[in-house]
């Protein structure tokens, strides 16, 4: 693993025992070798794997946890963090201060994502090369003009500011405002792709689908592997002891799970890791299922995506399998 990390970090071509200390050491003349400039600096010397660090700050201490693991680029924890300070380089909020200009240089909790010695009042130089073209008040160093944009000419179909919408199917009304779900979410209208209305008594429970470490995607490869199937041999549904008692379901009982799209069966795994939620004063139960099963292989089981809806996020069409609603009955 460390050999691979060394390749990613990069080293001096004529002496591979010397690792590159950071991406500012990269040269375009072949004297340096680096697989990923973003991660250059993660392994600055043999025996110094910064991603393996596990030093948190003491409880109550403010900071950026820079000695816990490593984050690209250059171990910066918040990108464009010059924006945490005002035009003069003073924190916008003392309570939330992150980096600031101390009169000589940029300093603070995090690694500055800005030329360390460029004063906040440095003028922009339109003829300058690279970052010299930006003034000291331009935090967004990867943008041509150095400033953040609220609107973009193309690409994103929603925005500009983040807000909260409920999932396409939800047990509750949007607590923020009338608009229940994203007005631009992608929905494929089909007879077999119906959505439950908010508060539909037939589907009272929130369900999340997720993965297990033992299987890969829908399991088409991992469910043929005896060493993996013995570790996670069967599809299950995790539910709280409270919901299990309400529905007279015992651990390992077969359970029927249904949504407006489909109905499947799985074994119950009753655990206190799942907890009843109180939302707007109302008790709502939450269940969870891994989605790695199908009908071929050493380990077989129902297809959990028969429950999910064909609903896509407006920008990249990722479907919404993390939160929807269902019913659970003892099979």
């Amino acid at each position, binding site marked *: 693993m460390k050999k691979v990390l060394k390749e990613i970090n990069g080293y001096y071509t004529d002496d591979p025992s010397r690792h590159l200390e950071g991406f500012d050491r990269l040269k375009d003349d072949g004297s340096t070798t680096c697989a990923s400039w973003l991660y250059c600096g993660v392994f600055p010397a043999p025996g110094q794997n910064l991603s*393996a660090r*596990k030093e*948190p700050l*003491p*409880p109550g201490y403010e900071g950026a946890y820079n000695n816990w693991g490593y984050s690209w680029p250059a171990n910066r924890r918040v990108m464009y963090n010059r924006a945490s300070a005002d035009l003069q380089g003073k924190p916008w909020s003392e309570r939330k201060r992150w980096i600031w200009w101390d009169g000589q240089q940029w300093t603070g909790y995090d690694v500055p994502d800005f030329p360390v010695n460029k004063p906040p009042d440095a003028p922009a130089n339109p003829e300058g090369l690279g970052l010299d073209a930006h003034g000291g008040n331009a935090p967004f160093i990867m943008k041509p003009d150095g400033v953040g944009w609220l609107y973009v000419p193309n690409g994103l179909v929603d925005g500009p500011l983040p807000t909260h919408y409920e999932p396409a199917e939800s047990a509750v009304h949007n607590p923020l405002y009338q608009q229940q779900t994203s007005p631009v979410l992608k929905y494929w209208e089909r007879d077999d792709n119906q959505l439950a209305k908010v508060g539909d008594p037939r589907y009272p429970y929130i369900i999340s689908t997720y993965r*297990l*470490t*033992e299987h890969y995607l829908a399991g088409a490869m991992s469910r043929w*592997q*005896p*060493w*993996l*199937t*013995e*570790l*996670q*041999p*069967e599809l*299950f549904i995790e539910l709280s002891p409270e919901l299990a008692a309400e529905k007279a379901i015992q*651990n*390992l009982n077969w359970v029927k799970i249904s949504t407006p799209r489909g109905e499947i069966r799985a*074994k119950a*795994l*009753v*655990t*206190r*890791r799942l*907890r009843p939620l109180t939302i707007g004063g109302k008790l709502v139960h939450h269940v969870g299922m891994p989605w790695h099963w199908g009908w071929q292989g*050493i*380990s077989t089981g129902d297809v959990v995506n028969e429950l999910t809806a064909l609903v896509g996020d407006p920008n990249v069409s990722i479907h919404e399998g993390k939160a929807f609603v269902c019913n659970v009955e003892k099979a």
Partner: protein
Amino acid sequence: MAEPMGFYTDTTVCIGCKACEVACKEWNQLPAENGGIRELSGESYDNTRRLDGIHWRHVKFVEQFPEDRSAGRWLMMSDVCKHCVKAGCLEVCPTNAIIRTEFDTVVIQSDVCNGCRDCIAACPFGVIDINPASGTAQKCTLCYDRLQAGMEPACSKACPTDSIQFGTIRELRQRAEQRVQQLHAQGEARAYLYGADEGMLGGLNSFYLLIDKSEVYGLPTNPQLPTRQLFPSSILSTLGALVLGLFGFVSLRKHRMEEIAAKRREDAGEGMGER
């Protein structure tokens, strides 16, 4: 002899991925139970349940959530043979199939084992069982074949969080002590080492950093050797034999006395008849 080698398992960074279990099986070519066709155990994410002849690594999952969920944690721990400095299995093996290697680890030689199962009962941690493929007792070898080639064991190499660490016992103990101090400084006062000194079976060459009572992880608080009773029980046996002998002597004497008394009565009776 090379320096004693072993494992230090820091349970606080185990994420329960079971990569160690699979890496162990892959390197040692151990079969999946029933070809991998199994039933869900219903016990958290643990579906192999224990160490045995074909599971030489086992990740335990302990869910600790109070009913009101005011707190909660999911403990995970990768368990393995402890390679005890004073090993019960090694003591009882009648064929000398169990040996101590030059790395101070404990290895069962499958070609010498006759499958008598004495070691299974002798292990205080329940590590050993019969591998149905060979019919002999098997357990973790601490990858003896890899160690001889200068490689680290498969499980610790595969561990993505360095929860399982391999090295010389001397260095591992230092590292573990530092980690305990670090955790104490961070406010995790429950952290302690299990089996990292000579007090437990002469020292476990696979020791653990735990944050709850050892029983919570299924580890005995005070594991004992099967031979611990050898001296007192031999004294007791001798005493028992003496007492039994004494009883025999007494009853023999009593029997003889009764015989003599009967004889006298008989003799006396004969005398009365003459009168």
